[in-house]
């Protein structure tokens, strides 16, 4: 299949209309069950999100 590789050409005529909206969750029916969880996460993230993300370092694996 490599020899059929179109080298980046394929999408130029097929780009979806630029205003195709990325999905955004509306007020979901399941949403209310998430409110408490979100409030709790939000509280904990105010404190240390940046440091937590910075310190999550892994070695590459397979």
């Amino acid at each position, binding site marked *: *299949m*490599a020899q*059929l*590789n*179109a*080298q*980046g*050409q*394929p*999408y130029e005529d*097929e780009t*979806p209309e630029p205003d*195709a*909206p*990325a*999905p*955004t*969750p*509306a007020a*979901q029916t*399941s*949403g209310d*069950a*998430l409110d408490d*969880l*979100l409030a709790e*996460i*939000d509280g904990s*993230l105010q404190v240390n*999100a*940046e440091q*937590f*993300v910075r*310190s*999550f*370092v*892994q*070695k*590459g*694996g*397979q």
Partner: protein
Amino acid sequence: MRVVGIETEYGIVDPDEPRANPILMSSRLVQACRSWAGDRTARWDYGGEDPLQDQRGFRRSRAQATPELLTDAPEFDESAGEVTLRRRRGSWEDPAHLNAVLANGARFYVDHAHPEYSGPEVTSAHDAVVWDRAGDAIALAAAQRYAEHEGSQVHLYKNNVDGKGASYGTHENFLVRRSTSFDDLARRLTPHLVTRQVFAGAGRVGLGQFGEAAGFQLSQRADYMEAEVGLETTLRRPIVNTRDEPHATRDRYRRLHVIIGDANTFDVATYLKIGTTSLVLAAIEADDERLDTLALAAPVEAVQTVSRDLTLRERLALADGDTASALEVQRALLEICRSYATDAGEAAVIARWEGVLERLATDVFSAAREVEWVAKLQLMGRMRARHASPEAPDGLPWHDARLAAMDLQWSRLGDGLATRLAAAGQVERIASDEEVAAAVATAPQDTRARLRGGIVAARPDVVDAAGWSTVVLDRETDHGHLEVVHLDEPLAARHPLLDALMAG
């Protein structure tokens, strides 16, 4: 019915000492796992010394081999299954490669700088979910034991990226017929591996191997796929991996080693990932030429295109000049695979596959209970919206550290966000908690894993080591050697010698 298995490399962190050595932590975690397992564990058989295995791909028959060693042992009669002898060597375990073969037939060990759970061989997508979740439970139990022993914490993450360039894998293994040519296999499976992300992706915050651009994408692994076909698994990773190590009768089987997949915390994602791929493989084994119409013009680029397209509308160029969206490719594969569902389990996979594709096509958020990336995007969307203001109508931007932190916390074993969503009743389950608890202690009963796990559970005192296709016995005998029981047929769940020993 196809033999499959899942391997998971977990991310590992000491939350109080982020710079702790991950190899050492992984080794101590495996040690803790052994402690948790009590006596019921065995070392790994690296099988360096299998006297009858020829590198040219065949095994000499017992009759031709070291008859002076084989004939005097009563267990070597024809009805006893294949057993060979191995000389004893000094026994030493490298702490950087510590292993535990477990009573459920799995292998828990140090792989590179990660703890890895390689699940036992199972024969259905449902059972793959059960023993995959059993692995999470075992890893968590080991981490608890670690905390008790070491006086420090270890957190495990079921994800595949650290956001700083490193990736570690969740690999699927599928037993396929040797008679199917590898070229056909690779060519015809690729469109599925590229497009199945729409339901199998775990979701990721950040674009690029280092997360250098802000945004959200469907898959953890997509940005690390750099070749169509290849042997590597740690660099220039290929969509289709060519490792030819069947761990089974070589002239009958290949073991297809799939490295493109994400680690999943959602049952339906794991279930569909395994179930659909197994069905596409059945179509390939049947030489179904309809698959050729789905060949992609540029598969490696398409992996990233699909992963970054949250609308699921982007058109992919096909090799024949046509185009199709990832969902259309999946619909076409589903139609082809209907003919290959041969039992109730596979029919259930088809039904779920169809339902999920339909929900994704209608409104992606209607699949939030089943598709992991959708649930993650939904939770993140809600978090972003909480912080919306007149100045920032979109709320938190994608580069905000809080979203990156949520992405990591999503997959933490024990108290991660995915676990908490499930506890809140927001995630559909394929396997019950009871099934998972049973699978922590018991091996699948319909594959050779029954023998490996069963002997470790019942007679650890006579097991020197075990591997995928061997159990090495160390017991009182006249010949004084180790006995290697060969389990080259993955579907053979019985063995006269091992069953006799297990029965006591």
